[in-house]
């Protein structure tokens, strides 16, 4: 059993990030101060994708740090896109155990395969406990 220890959020607001087959950072999360000993960090994300063209697939990933080079946090969330779908709102969630850290920071990335679209909104919400 635990209690929430810290909480923070980053809302990228109205953005326009084209996704064309390359993993792309759409939001960099807050620098969350964690308990010094051990804790679990819960990360929730919401993305709004617009202008979906063509049938294909997309992947939402979470990485440590601020770039696509950061270590991947499992799992990756995938979904199919359908021609004419237009727009899509998706939420995803991750948890990660951390220890002996002062701060953690994550970035949210989106990638597409066979379909192109725009990420028009992205929110990252982090809680440590």
């Amino acid at each position, binding site marked *: 059993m635990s209690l929430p220890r810290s909480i923070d959020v980053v809302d990228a607001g109205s953005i326009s990030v084209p996704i064309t087959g390359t993993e792309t950072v759409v939001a960099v999360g807050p620098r969350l101060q964690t308990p010094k000993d051990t804790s679990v960090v819960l990360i929730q994300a919401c993305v709004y994708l617009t202008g979906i063209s063509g049938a294909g697939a997309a992947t939402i990933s979470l990485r440590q740090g601020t770039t696509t080079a950061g270590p991947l946090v499992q799992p990756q969330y*995938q*979904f*199919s896109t359908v021609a004419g779908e237009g727009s899509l709102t998706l939420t995803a969630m991750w*948890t990660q155990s951390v220890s002996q850290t002062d701060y953690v920071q994550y970035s949210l990335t989106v990638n597409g395969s066979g379909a192109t679209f725009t990420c028009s909104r992205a929110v990252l919400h982090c809680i440590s406990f």
Partner: protein
Amino acid sequence: MSVPRSIDRSDLGGATVTVPTTTETVVLVGPTLQPPKDTSIVAVIVSLSMVQGTGATGLTLRLRLGSTVGGTQVGQPYVVTTPSSIQTLTVSFVVTFPAYSTDYVQVCLTAQQTAASGNGNVTAAAMVAISF
């Protein structure tokens, strides 16, 4: 208004769980959450990603008490109807239920495909449970 009293989580990590054709299957067993002893509300937030089996036209997601499909269902099921062209989907949902005079609460997430002749695979799942 309440404040959180306990919070815990469960996560598939990088594992994959197979959902055979139309059989209800436990995908993820949640944490053993210690709620307040008297009365409380438990909120469970779930995200999962699934590759559907051949012929699947939908997916029913449930939370059940305990760790098996024999457990009592809590909240209402979430039914996702999908066109046959959808192969992979990501779903998030929230279930809340009251708890009385209990020391611990545990729920499991189950998935059941509709009309599938092939097995599905849950490739991502995470659950957080909060009592207040």
